[in-house]
């Protein structure tokens, strides 16, 4: 195979020297990943995982590596203020840790929360396993790029049995800069046996066209409980590509509420493994692209142990010229008897220029299972509209009401009431007037 000239995107990201950590295995790993990224380039739509997300436009863009001025960028803390979220906070601006915007004093007992770079400086060895886990998958360009270039991120650990009451707020803020930037963050989160944590992952920004990548490992030991909210409000011009790996031990429970609202190109790959007997995962999500946004959610849930359960409820609303992409794959491994898996993805198309592509998948290798999925793409129910109109509610208002109700269903079981109301307000704002 002849080597064509690398895409401007790839060339620009190879431009700067790799960060030097002084840790031999880490530096070698970064080099190897950068070489692999350079060799493979960007995935194209012939690859199944990228069938509906074309990277042609991104491939023609150039980014500067990292933001040297990040520490000096003026940021209004109101930008990431969330009601009902007032616990410890770790904040990054353009991929750089900002102590001044974080709240790390008086952390509750049992909680360790710090930037990954700091954790690596203190003792890199405990992180070696998770950071070296190699994933030689086709099309993993961004994961490789991230592994090569990410210097920092979130290092969070909850001690066994510790129950952290206040939700931990992780803020990733994009701020305008002199040029378009690429930043990369790597997160390592672990909940010890029987630990409990509420986590809010919050992407926010305005008026910039940066590219952010994030790769996270979240490990729940036996009996741990995680309640996570993912609020993605990245700047409408920016690109954000994330992969989260969630591993659940025996009887561990995770509940995720996901709002995908921002970004020009936003892709989230969420891979969950129900690895211990009796583990349970609930995901609730809504993606609402409009304008020319492209929002892509790739959910893959593996049932690997006995009596595991997963329930996924996802809604999509695409307006104007936007495109919403959803893949919800459930795999029940051989021997994972007693698995109970269900997934539902309902979508609304609000415009003749918008598009929804959805692909629920089931791969079942065990017979003592219950597995079901459903997906729909359509419009509002005419009868419901008629019902409201017959009661004197104008057409547009009736539509707005029904659309809001359609999305809101994913928030119903979020326990944090103040946050729930705030998120419902954000959903309403995203809808057409």
């Amino acid at each position: 195979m002849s080597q064509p000239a690398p895409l401007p995107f790839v060339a620009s990201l190879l431009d700067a020297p790799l960060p030097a950590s002084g840790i031999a295995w880490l530096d070698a790993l970064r080099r190897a990943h950068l070489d692999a990224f350079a060799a493979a380039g960007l995935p194209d739509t012939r690859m199944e995982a990228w069938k509906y997300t074309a990277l042609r436009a991104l491939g023609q863009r150039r980014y500067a590596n990292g933001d040297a001025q990040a520490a000096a960028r003026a940021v209004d803390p109101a930008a990431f203020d969330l009601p009902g979220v007032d616990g410890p906070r770790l904040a990054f601006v353009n991929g750089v840790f900002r102590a001044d915007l974080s709240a790390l004093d008086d952390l509750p007992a049992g909680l360790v929360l710090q930037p990954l770079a700091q954790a690596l400086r203190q003792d890199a060895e405990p992180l070696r396993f998770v950071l070296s886990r190699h994933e030689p998958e086709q099309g993993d360009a961004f994961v490789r790029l991230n592994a090569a270039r990410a210097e920092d991120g979130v290092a969070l650990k909850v001690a066994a049995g510790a129950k952290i009451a206040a939700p931990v707020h992780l803020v990733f803020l994009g701020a305008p800069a002199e040029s378009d930037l690429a930043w990369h963050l790597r997160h390592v989160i672990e909940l010890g046996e029987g630990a409990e944590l509420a986590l809010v992952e919050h992407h926010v920004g305005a008026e910039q066209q940066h590219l952010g990548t994030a790769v996270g490992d979240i490990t729940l030991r036996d009996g741990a409980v995680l309640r996570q909210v993912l609020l993605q409000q990245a700047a409408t011009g920016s690109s954000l590509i994330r992969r989260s790996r969630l591993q659940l031990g025996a009887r561990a429970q995770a509940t995720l509420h996901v709002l995908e609202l921002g970004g020009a190109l936003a892709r989230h790959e969420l891979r969950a493994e129900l690895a211990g007997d009796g583990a349970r995962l609930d995901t609730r999500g809504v993606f609402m692209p409009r304008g020319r946004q492209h929002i892509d959610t790739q959910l893959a849930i593996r049932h690997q142990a006995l009596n595991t359960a997963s329930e996924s409820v996802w809604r999509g609303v695409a307006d104007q010229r936007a495109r919403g992409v959803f893949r919800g794959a459930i795999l029940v491994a051989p021997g994972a008897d007693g698995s109970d898996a269900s997934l539902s993805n309902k979508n609304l198309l609000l415009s003749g220029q918008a598009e929804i592509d959805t692909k629920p998948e089931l791969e079942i290798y065990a017979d003592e299972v219950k597995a079901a999925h459903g997906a729909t793409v359509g419009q509002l129910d005419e009868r419901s509209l008629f019902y409201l109109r017959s009661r004197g509610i104008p057409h547009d208002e009736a539509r707005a009401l029904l659309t809001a109700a359609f999305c809101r269903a994913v928030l119903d079981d979020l326990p944090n009431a103040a946050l729930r109301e705030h998120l419902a307000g954000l959903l309403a704002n995203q809808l057409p007037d």
Partner: protein
Amino acid sequence: MASTRNALRDNAGVAEALGRNYSAGFVTEIEMTGLPPGLDEETIRQLSAIKREPEWMTEWRLAAYRHWLTMPQPDWAKLKMDAIDYQAISYYAAPKQAPKSLDEVDPALLETYEKLGVPLHERAALAGVAVDAVFDSVSVGTTFRKQLAEAGVIFCSMSEAIREHPELVQKYLGSVVPPGDNFFAALNSAVFSDGSFVFIPRGVRCPMELSTYFRINAQNTGQFERTLIVAEEGAHVSYLEGCTAPKRDENQLHAAVVELVALERAQIKYSTVQNWYPGDENGVGGIYNLVTKRGDCRGDDSKISWTQVETGSAITWKYPSVVLRGDRSVGEFHSVALTHHYQQADTGTKMIHIGKDTKSKIVSKGISAGRSNNSYRGLVKVEKGAERARNYTQCDSLLIGKKCGAHTFPYMEVKNPSAIVEHEATTSKISDDQMFYCRSRGIGEEDAVSMIVDGFCKQVFRELPMEFAVEAKKLLEVSLEGAVG
């Protein structure tokens, strides 16, 4: 149009003439020995020459072959398949030495016929015994042909159609599945051996179910079958392919192409029962069935319906599709796919909505037993202009045993806000409650399983012509033998 009519009337005469040709035999040596294994342009020229095809057909095949050379074999299906050596296949086999009587036929095959209740005189035909004396299909066939010719229906082998109705073949062949459509379709276009050609002229309702079973002039259609069915404005036809009884067949690779064209208000119903050799219980041997089937609802208010019962073949790769081009056209797909032992099936459908107010319905029932893997793979695509398109998809999988797999990969691509697309899928096993209920009423374990499976498949079976539905039910029973207990 008038010339077409005349050609149709002459059909019976054509058959006679053809029969004479065959009896005179192709005197060439090639006819006796077949072509040696291997595939290049020369093979295709020879094949085309043997079949006495016109120049344009030879060129068409060569173009397909040249395109095929540039294509990689697809690997996206969830199938584990040994590499196929295309140079090791003979693309024109001499007629095989047929067994002279049923005594020479494999007893296992006879046992299966016994279980399926195939009438004695048909068993010989299915087992490939030289039939003329045993089974008077000739007279049956001739009666039917007369009746069809009177109605103006053309029903003949593809080779015959290429020679006798070149204008129709040229107009429609490859218009639904272009020669370069996919790897196996390109291969088929280059080397197709024979198949059926059906033409139902404007306004004609075909007076009987057309079945390859009674097709006397297209026997030994071989491994690269090519079928083309055209229904003109307002025409109706129901076509039955295959047979419930397993066929004696030594071809390892089957790459068929089926094209359906429905013009305005036309309706085509295509039913398949596929029961080729699935390999033994250790997964040795068996047919690779790699088929491209597509229907084109070209005219407004047309309808194409696929019904398939797939129990055979070691590997099934098959996605009967409908392109809903005409406004208010309708596409349907009803499928039962059963896999046992080490069989693998990756099958489903595509419904492409282009016209306004188009409707499609998909009902797929997958049953996996033994160590088999059974996947549904489907696409529902609604293009921008397909106002008020409607799709409903239901995919159910039944697992029998712990070592098998059942998978569902539906793709939905929607670009029109007034469309409604729905997909539902479930996977389960036969529940202990169901079994207990049946057993407590004195029904044996195997019978209970077969009753439950029958109920599971009922939605599809009722789409089959009645006598086929009865046979299909029996076929599932036989195929599932040894799956429980």
